[in-house]
């Protein structure tokens, strides 16, 4: 579970996030909606402990997000997943995080094969990462994150660079793992909201809306009526 309380980043007029408070429970798939520059990536980096907040707190299952305990419970897939692959073959790269936490080699091999099967990409196991399509690269990055058995998953604009076919493969994979995880994904594509159980609308660094996609649609329609 993610809990963000009065989270701010930056000072004065340069403030990128202002007093953002929300939570994402286990089994929820929450969309973080906002224009470019609205603070989505900053918020995700704060949640992942890559940035330290100016004020406020982030907790992952009750632990501070920058602690080792929280870091192991949380995984993030970057906007360009190519940047987060370290090794040149798929199975080795999935094992990278497991090497870091000192998992034994037999257990590591078992977990890598299991996660490849779960995501339906076992055939990619021995492939060079440089030969993968963008969609496949994203699934491999996700596999690398899932291998660590996180409870919380963060995605920075996961579908921006995917074609319709890869988008559907991605959402299928995500829905499969959603019940056991707290998932937060940023997007600026309204089409992605149909996959979310809840929406957070970020504007100018402030949280403007927190509710279901249908509540957001009603609120937007009401606003349009008022605007004439």
């Amino acid at each position: 579970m993610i809990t963000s309380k009065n989270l701010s980043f930056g000072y004065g007029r340069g403030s990128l996030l202002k007093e953002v408070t929300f939570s994402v429970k286990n089994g929820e798939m929450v969309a973080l909606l906002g224009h470019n520059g609205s603070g989505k990536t900053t918020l995700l980096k704060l949640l992942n402990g890559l940035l330290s907040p100016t004020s406020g707190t982030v907790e992952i299952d009750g632990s501070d997000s920058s602690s080792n305990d929280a870091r192991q419970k949380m995984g993030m897939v970057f906007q360009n997943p190519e940047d987060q692959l370290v090794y040149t073959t798929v199975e080795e790269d999935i094992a990278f995080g497991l090497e870091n936490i000192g998992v034994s080699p037999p257990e590591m091999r078992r977990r890598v094969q299991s996660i490849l099967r779960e995501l339906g990409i076992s055939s990619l196991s021995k492939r060079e990462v440089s030969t993968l399509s963008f969609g496949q690269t994203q699934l491999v990055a996700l596999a690398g994150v899932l291998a660590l058995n996180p409870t919380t998953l963060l995605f920075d604009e996961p579908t921006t660079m995917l074609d319709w076919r890869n988008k559907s493969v991605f959402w299928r994979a995500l829905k499969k793992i959603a019940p056991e995880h707290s998932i937060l994904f940023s997007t600026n594509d309204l089409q992605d909201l149909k996959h979310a159980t809840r929406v957070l609308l970020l504007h100018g660094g402030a949280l403007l809306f927190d509710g279901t996609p249908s509540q957001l649609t009603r609120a937007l329609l009401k606003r349009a009526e008022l605007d004439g």
Partner: protein
Amino acid sequence: MDNFLKSMDPRTKLLGVLLLSALLFVKPLSFQIFSTLLVAFLWNTANLSLSQLFRALKPMSFFFAFLFFAYVFLGNLAEGILQIWRFSLLIWIAHLLVSTTSTGKLVLAVERLTRPILGRRARTLGILLSLTIRFIPLLQSESETVRDAMKSRCLRKWKPRHFGLFIERMLGKSIERVGRIGDAFISRGYRDQGTTSYHSLSFRSLDYGILVFLAVLLWI
């Protein structure tokens, strides 16, 4: 036979590459001829194509041209050709290592070989090597994109300021990428101690045989 190089312990391969590379610069011409025959044999054994032989040299073409003209200018063409041949051998030997060893194994080999000297920093050195192998092709592809973007905006003749713009753009992209890789490392829990490895390494009789062969080469 085609798995001969792949089944060798990566530490043996790494030591072989380092030793052959060093010997190329201290041994006489006969060693260079011997090395060429050895590279040809290994290239064939590794099932690498002739086109890969030339592709491996492509990124160094500017350096080779510079070397060639420098020696022509100094009036020593024969030495220039020998130097280019020597550097080509170095690149082919390194290419053989990289194309027959996965980076995971290479990282582990570097880590094991350098741990007595570097201690916990040995893993960092191995990972840096892996990142270099992984990101050089990406940087090459990005440099082509920047060049194409400049060409598509009617750049026909490169002037010094265009080279400056190109370098500035590439530096910017590289720095941005380094920042993102750093974030990915933190996010994926990178550590330099208390780690394990996906692979396990073990010397076999083949490796001992090759190490003896390398020792003989050094002694001769």
